[in-house]
């Protein structure tokens, strides 16, 4: 059975399916490190996915599709930041509001503008010359025959880690998330840093949506993400607020997802419902094990108010 689980095609699809988790999870990491929990990721992803799909559907331009998703993500990130930073709303609940908005709005627009199930030509696989031909352990097939967004997602992991840990901006983000009073006293504009991280998170969530609708699935339907954005938020806890941790979590989940797609072949006796259930159940277990949370940003979900 093990040779059926670890085939090159399962592993390759695990790598591919990790893309939306990585984009959304990295974006959420920035927000949470600065002290803002954005629970509306799934809604932003849906809106981004629709924007990308509709743009590609009408213009056939993948670049414009990605740009549309980024723009929608950025705007929704701005709205999220306004509500949680400026209006200081309870972040858990307002995030659910944004989720419901994105869920309803993307369906509404889909019904209005497209209506019947359609598909688009998404990002084609891009074999990296030389590397993609490595036969040894199927490495070429597993790692080097993916579409552009997959490579981008993996490249963003070290870049995010670098920004967070080695740049002044990253230092400010961490300071604002750990001790906003001290950061404020040192002259850091807490609100501005949080606006920037939450908007960046929105941007990445939009991209995550695009990676589903114009790269991995190439379709759009009501509730396309089916809760993937919430898993991405959980991955940030699981990954201890570190980009590399998020990557590992994303790979774990995409591997489970890839297996789930093959479940009827690998283990035909298991009812398909249990295969679908697996990622969600594993998320709960993962959260229990990630619960020490000594590295959790101290100011997470706490709006900053200057003492008078």
């Amino acid at each position: 059975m093990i040779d059926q689980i670890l085939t090159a095609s399962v592993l390759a699809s695990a790598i591919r399916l990790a893309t939306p988790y990585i984009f959304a999870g990295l974006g959420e990491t920035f927000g949470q490190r600065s002290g803002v929990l954005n629970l509306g990721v799934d809604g932003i992803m849906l809106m981004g996915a629709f924007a990308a799909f509709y743009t590609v559907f009408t213009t056939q331009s993948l670049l414009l599709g990605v740009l549309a998703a980024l723009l929608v993500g950025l705007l929704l990130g701005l709205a999220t930041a306004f509500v949680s930073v400026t209006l200081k709303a309870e972040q858990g609940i307002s995030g659910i509001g944004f989720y419901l908005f994105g869920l309803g709005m993307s369906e509404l627009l889909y019904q209005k503008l497209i209506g019947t199930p359609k598909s688009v030509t998404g990002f084609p696989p891009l074999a990296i010359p030389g590397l993609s031909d490595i036969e040894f352990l199927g490495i070429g097939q597993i790692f080097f025959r993916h579409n552009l967004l997959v490579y981008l997602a993996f490249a963003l992991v070290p870049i995010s880690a670098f920004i967070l840990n080695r740049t002044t901006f990253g230092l400010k983000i961490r300071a604002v998330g750990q001790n906003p009073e001290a950061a404020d006293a040192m002259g850091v504009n807490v609100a501005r840093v949080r606006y920037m991280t939450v908007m960046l998170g929105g941007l990445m969530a939009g991209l995550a949506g695009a990676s589903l609708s114009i790269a991995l699935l190439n379709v759009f339907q009501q509730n396309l993400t089916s809760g993937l954005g919430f898993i991405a938020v959980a991955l940030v806890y699981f990954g201890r607020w570190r980009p590399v941790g998020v990557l590992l979590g994303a790979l774990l989940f995409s591997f489970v997802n890839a297996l789930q797609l093959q479940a009827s072949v690998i283990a035909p006796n298991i009812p398909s419902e249990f295969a679908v259930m697996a990622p969600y159940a594993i998320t709960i277990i993962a959260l229990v094990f990630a619960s020490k949370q000594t590295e959790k940003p101290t100011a997470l979900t706490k709006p900053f108010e200057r003492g008078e």
Partner: protein
Amino acid sequence: MNFRPSAVTLVFFKTFANSLLNAWPLLLAIAAAAAAASLLLLALNANPIQAFSSMLQGAFGTTNATAETLVKAIPVLFVAIGICVAFRGGVVNIGGEGQMIAGAVAGVTAALTLGPIITFGPLLIALCLVCGFLAGALYGGLAGFLKAYFNVNEILSTIMLNQVAVQMMNFLLNGPLLDPAELGTNHIPKTARIVQWAELPRLSLSLGDNFELFTRTRLHFGLVLGIILAIVIYVLLWRTTIGYRIRAVGQNERASRYAGINVRRQIVLAMFLAGGIAGLAGVVQVLGLQYRLQTDGSPTGFTGNAGFNGIVAALFGGLNPLGAIPASVVFGGLLVGAQKMQRDLGVSAALITAINGLIVVFVVSSQYYIRQRARRRLAAPTSPAAAAAERPAAAAALEQQA
């Protein structure tokens, strides 16, 4: 006869004026949501006034429409009451959907297995309700337990538990609980019909031939149960020590701990109650409306999104179980009215989901200003004595020496 306001009317008037003053952020939120809805409708090439009047017609235009509105309001009301308990206890329970499913599965199983044995209807119904409550309570309590003892974020755990519950229900309805009459390849996922004496009675009033209310509609006894439950939970939250402890933890966890309250226990209890009440929503839906458990396979196939709408209604009702009653009716009206709007104007009923989201955002955003107002009122010294009391003791001592 000239009118002289007595002291009682004055007090009443003052409270009324005060509550109006306190309600303005909520009213503002409603206005903002209506404005946003109008803009959306305009963008969709629909006339907002036409859309709203179509919705109003669809929701309350006829007796049958009103009955359907109330029918839709029932599960929303139950979930909203539960959400009040959880949110007042400082636990953000997003798991209404899953808890409702857990309750419905347990309730329908009880009805199917006990139905042939217990022929006394009220007892059978009570047993089904208890089973549904317990199942929902355990499912909700699990998230509370994980939060209290393992520090697991309850928002994330309840969302995941929702998905697990949906799949579990789909599995059961396609296998162990499938209606034997449906055995075959192309079956509809549903259980067998429950026995007749397990059904909640219909709610209708007819006085002779001239006055009839809600006859021949689907309105059922669940509405009465929901209103009774709202009153019970209101009393529990504001008139008992159990409720006091739950609310204390929700207000200030650290202070509660110093006051000797077992914070962890209150968190589990709040989620246990919230889950149980959401579970009742599921049972009542089975016993009162569908007479079986069935779904279309989609995540909201059974619940009709009541688990999420209940959150919106609870926030709308000011996290007060009594406020949840009118709020749920409004939401039932939105859901039923949206279907007519979809038929009349061709605007997808998904608009309501989007508007619900905006309402949540607006209501939660306005709460900050309510808190600020309360804080300012506390901070302002009310009398010279109070001002003196706030002065540092050392300054007062210096004054006395002089």
